[in-house]
């Protein structure tokens, strides 16, 4: 990363020569819009991506459940495909990258819809308190990108980095199957 931003000090400090301060600039695209932050001024170099998204951009869909990569509640997508734990990624590592948070999903997103609709007898709902849900939704988005036709066993493996203490795992697995089905139908329609 090169220093990209130079800022003249507002006031000279007595006894010290007035000198321009240069900052390295972090450029990150979040949900389609580019944002720039001067590292050391707007954000700290050790700031996590999760903190940047929540505190600096107000994107509070992602949650900080454990802050150590154990619960998956902070999951976002990087460069359109891969799910990453934003509490384990430094903000500066997102330089020139595209980040998608749950706020960036359309209202009719098939994964969001499937999580909301899940209520079939025998499997419960896909959410109760809902605090882990954005993390699960983004993890499922990333997973279905990689594996559009998953089996139940593959889903259980893929979502085992996320914790739902309400224990809606059965409903979440069903919602994931339903989302895959919705996406299959959409693909078939589009190719027809």
């Amino acid at each position, binding site marked *: 990363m090169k220093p990209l931003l130079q800022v003249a000090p507002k006031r000279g400090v007595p006894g010290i020569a007035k000198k321009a301060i240069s900052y390295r600039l972090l450029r990150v695209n979040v949900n389609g819009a580019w944002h720039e932050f001067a590292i050391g001024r707007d954000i700290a170099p050790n700031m996590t991506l999760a903190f940047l998204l929540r505190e600096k951009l107000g994107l509070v869909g992602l949650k900080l459940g454990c802050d150590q990569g154990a619960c998956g509640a902070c999951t976002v997508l990087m460069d359109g495909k891969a799910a990453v734990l934003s509490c384990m990624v430094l903000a500066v590592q997102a330089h020139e990258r595209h980040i998608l948070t749950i706020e960036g999903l359309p209202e009719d997103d098939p994964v969001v819809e499937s999580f909301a609709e899940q209520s079939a*007898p025998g499997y*419960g709902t896909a959410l*109760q308190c809902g605090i882990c849900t954005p993390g699960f939704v983004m993890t499922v988005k990333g997973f279905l990108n990689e594996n559009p036709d998953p089996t139940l066993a593959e889903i259980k493996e893929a979502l085992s980095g996320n914790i739902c203490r309400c224990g809606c795992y059965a409903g979440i697995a069903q919602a994931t199957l339903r989302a895959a089905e919705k996406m299959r139908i959409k693909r078939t329609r589009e190719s027809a």
Partner: protein
Amino acid sequence: MSTKPQAREPYTPRTPRKFIGSYRPRIDAKEKASGKVQYIDDITLKSRFPDLLYAKVMRSPHAHARIKSMDIGPARALPGVIDILTYKDPEVASLKPTNAGWTDGVDTVSYDSMMWRHFRDRRVLGDYACWVTDEVGAVVAAETEAIAEEALKLIKVEWEVLPFVLDPLEAMQPGAPLVHPEISSNNVLPKDLVGGDDVFIDKGDVDKAFAEAEVVVDGTSTHHNATQGSLDNWCCVVEWRGGKLTLQSNSYEADQSRMHISQMLDIPIHNVRVISSYVGGQFGRGDTGDQPFFIFTALLAKRTGRPVKFRHTRRESFHDSRQPAIYYAKVGAKRDGTITAMYFKSIGNSGAYADHTMFALKFAPVEIAEVALARIPNIRMESYGVYTNKLPACMMRGVGNSQFNLSFSHMVDRLAEALDMDPIDLALKNFTHEWGTLPDKSLSEVLRQGANRIGWTEKRNKQAGNGPTYPGAKKRGAGFSFHPAWHAEWQEARRGAIHAGITVNPDCTVLLEAPTVETGSGSNTCNVLGCAEALSFLGITLDDIQWSHVVDTETSMKDCVQTDSAVSFLQSEVLAHAAREIKNQLLAKAATAMKASADDLDVIDGHVFVKAHPELRMTVRNVLFSGDIRPLMVKIALPPNVTKTGVPYIATFAEVEVDIDTGKTEVLKMVVINDCGTVMFASGAEAQQIGGQCIGVGESLTEEIIYDRMTGVPLNFNWIDYKIPTMADMPDIEPVLLEVWKGAGEYGACGIGEGTVTCAPRAILNAIYNAIGVRVNDIPVKPEVILKALGKA
């Protein structure tokens, strides 16, 4: 090959209804699935409170220690530190001693009437630390969390390090370090008004009955301290300006929190405003509305004149836990399986503070004796809560019942084996409530359904450990555990009046006041369904009803606390009454508009009509828009119906596979059966049945707080080493909803969510025994426990 989405057979309702009991999404499902619901940490972003300060409290590095001296100078000099409150400051030192056991959440209590007023063993901020992590000494308010943390490191403390004790049996020995010498001279909690004597039940002649019993079995089991593990860490923001204090938090007891703050800080109630909204999971955490950190955060807000935010880190979220309990039990019976005597003795590890220890150890068993052991002629129960220097034990989902059940269903399984009986037959022969007959109708159906669904006759080895060995040295077995529910309406008498309100707008839309802090239990959906059902004469749909998720003590009616998972029906019972009043108001208004007597009118499906001439009719909407256009409004407060009706039963059946080479246990299948009285919201109820097993299986197999015995330091206060089950760890779980029992109210329902965790551990333990033929009785059952039991380690 991809898998198709699945569905099972729906339950069969006793009385088909339009809304109540339906399979449908939660009312907040769309908002939650799209990430739009905001929790306390989201609502209290710095950008929304530009002058926000962050508070961090000092925590003891020692299991047992006293602060001899403290120097905050260097910390105070750190740029960005705005204030440091210490235990020596007069506003702190003058605070009344307190505890975290004001109430079990059922009723609102004052300082004088708090449930465990005999154990006021906590200072909001003192100099005495009773466990590693105890909040003591000082709280820093700074511009950022990082600065506040840095400041804590700069506070110099000279500690008087004291000897400590972790094990309750050691703590009871003479000469053991005393945790709260001013309360107990032997670490055993003294007699209190709520819990009663050490021997708190002594019915019949137990000694004689055991002497005469033809078969006697006994055994010991230990339930450990799991933690609630809510993803939504404790958090609050307090503003205190111009005499008025406002607390926003994820406490689920708004009214009680207000009372707590008012009484601790001596502020008139109308100057305290408490606001709570959606909470990201509760599970009994801080089931008392009295968190001491509310108080020191408030004092910092007053001193700085700025809003102050306090939030636990994940490490700090290990703040309370289930009471660990060692249960010894003995049961005597006749050869035909008639139980003649039962004896239970429990020793609970309170940890550093008493909190609700005696609720778990005495209150819950007393209820169980009343509703399940009514026909056992001779019963003795005794309990001892013991202070140690461990994480305090407070409330957790299934409080007291989970610990008791681990012992209770152990005895049933063991006695059945000694008598060569099926444990199902033994259970049906003995257990019911005093208003029921034997066999108990609810228990019969619960166990019949469980046996059918798990495949009891095929899956259970006739002789424990004698089944086939599957590839890789794996043995399979089946077991079950059952328990009386404890959330019937009559058991909620202590709540007092339950508030609810209905406003019908002129366009026939409805504002529903069913104030409660929604923690995920789904009671909000139950209440909207209940409201729609009760107002079905208006011809409305669910979309016509608006339920407010914010509880604000300044504008809301009193909130009904999410304990006993009873909010799922308690408010609906009141709404049924409110709806009748709305109907009266509507007919009175229609009488004017239709120039008829209200008595001659009725309303069905959105139309008011003259009973004798149904063709003379008006739409409800037209009635409401006639004359004085104002909303119909009813606000009522009614106590629960306390007619005693006994309780229904719950059970969990499990099939397990144990690898006898590695000791690993895998749960293959679980069936969770709840007799609900009336199913209020089927998808939500099944989500609770399935979901409870995340805690149940975790407590059984993987979740455990581990201490360094040399230092008393807890080693795994994080989610990597404290292992909460994920999707990959969970078996297929079949939820079974039944409507056999019925309470006295309109719906006669019974809360189910809390109890869904209770039977899991013993069901799994009985299944393990059935698989390998060796009993393990303590949880969690880690592989080394199995190997040890098998003589392999």
